[in-house]
């Protein structure tokens, strides 16, 4: 029987919701929550313990959290670590990935393919899942199959065949057509408006723009991914996977009034933000600094979206659209608030 440990966040471990997001690493006996479903799917592998940690705690104390979790892991004498599934939750996915990547034993995790955690998983296997918990029943058996393969030391085939996300290793294979024929196809596609490539240099990087010479002469715009909207969310910005962004006039007042603005971001506890919306989009401070002359001026509109589970292609498009408006409006600097 292979001994395994399961990692879950505070919510799936049954410790609470967002209010428990600061829970430090803790150990629970045997499989818990979805771990029970996972255990039922596993053959020849036993989940002897569950490690849990609050998503916020991990994000804000990553080194300490990892150190503690690895200690707890070692104490179990496990041969396999399974983390998640984290679905589309960025903080949870990131924690799963970092733990799986640093664990000294075989590890695999599971999350949606666009979860930012995917890039942090190192050599650990990542099983792709649906974007939310509705995909749990589908994810668990697939995680179990891969866990069994890893535990057995079986050499894995192609990611598509085995059900894990490509990790970035390049392997040769014979294509159906020669490179010359593929080049002609690729070029004709490009000329017709669809650019594809067989190999990329790595992450798309944008170099930092030149600094603003003097903000006291510049117009600054406020943009937020924290889903800050007028109270009541009149235009119904979704709390997750927002299909767009919204622009609102920036109030003339000295700050964002509680009760007039709220956050509709579905990925964190918005209580504190709603008590004082300036905590998410710091208009009060910005207005003060504008009055004092530190900032030349604040753009008269603010932009908002919820950076929660937004697919990369969509958020790229939103950014380009917002950027175009800002550029046309002569905005020279942007303060972007996230979570």
């Amino acid at each position, binding site marked *: 029987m292979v001994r395994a440990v399961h990692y879950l966040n505070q919510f799936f471990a049954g410790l609470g919701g967002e209010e428990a997001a600061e829970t430090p690493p803790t150990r629970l006996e045997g499989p818990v929550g979805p771990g029970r479903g996972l255990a039922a799917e596993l053959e020849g592998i036993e989940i002897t313990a569950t490690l849990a940690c609050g998503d916020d705690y991990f994000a804000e104390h990553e080194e300490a959290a990892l150190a503690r979790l690895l200690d707890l892991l070692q104490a179990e004498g496990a041969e396999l670590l399974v983390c998640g599934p984290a679905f589309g939750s960025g903080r949870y996915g990131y924690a799963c990935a970092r733990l799986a990547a640093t664990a000294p034993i075989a590890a695999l995790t599971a999350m949606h393919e666009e979860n930012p955690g995917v890039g942090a998983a190192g050599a650990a296997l990542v099983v792709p899942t649906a974007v939310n918990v509705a995909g749990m029943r589908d994810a668990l058996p697939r995680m179990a199959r891969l866990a069994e393969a890893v535990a057995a030391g079986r050499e894995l085939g192609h990611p598509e065949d085995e059900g894990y996300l490509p990790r970035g290793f390049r392997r040769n294979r014979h294509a159906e057509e020669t490179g010359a024929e593929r080049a002609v196809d690729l070029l004709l596609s490009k000329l017709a408006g669809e650019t594809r490539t067989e190999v990329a240099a790595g992450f798309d990087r944008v170099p930092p723009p030149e*600094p603003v010479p003097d903000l006291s002469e510049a117009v*600054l715009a406020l943009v937020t991914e924290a889903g800050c909207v007028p109270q009541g969310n009149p235009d119904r910005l979704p709390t997750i996977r927002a299909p767009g962004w919204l622009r609102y006039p920036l109030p003339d007042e000295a700050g964002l009034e509680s009760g007039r603005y709220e956050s509709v971001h579905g990925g964190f506890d918005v209580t504190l933000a709603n008590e004082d919306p300036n905590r998410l989009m710091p208009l009060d401070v910005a207005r003060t600094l504008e009055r004092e002359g530190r900032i030349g001026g604040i753009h008269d509109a603010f932009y908002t979206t919820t950076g929660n589970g937004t697919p990369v292609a969509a958020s790229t498009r939103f950014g380009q659209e917002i950027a175009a408006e800002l550029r046309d409006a002569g905005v020279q600097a942007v303060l972007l608030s996230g979570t």
Partner: protein
Amino acid sequence: MLAKEIERAGIPTVFVTSLPTIARMIGANRIVRGPAITHPFGLEAAERRRIVERALEMLETHVEPTTVWEAAP
């Protein structure tokens, strides 16, 4: 990732977030670490002002790609 696209248009952008590691991975260049996910600019106005001033300073500074500054120097 909004920050990268706005930067691609040439507008210096500073991103205040409590998750700077992810922000670096996705390619934001000017990043200021905020204290918590639920309140990345802090709870009180004084802390908020410190963080915003740090962010403004970063907008006026040359940086290497994906640079993270702490709120309090």
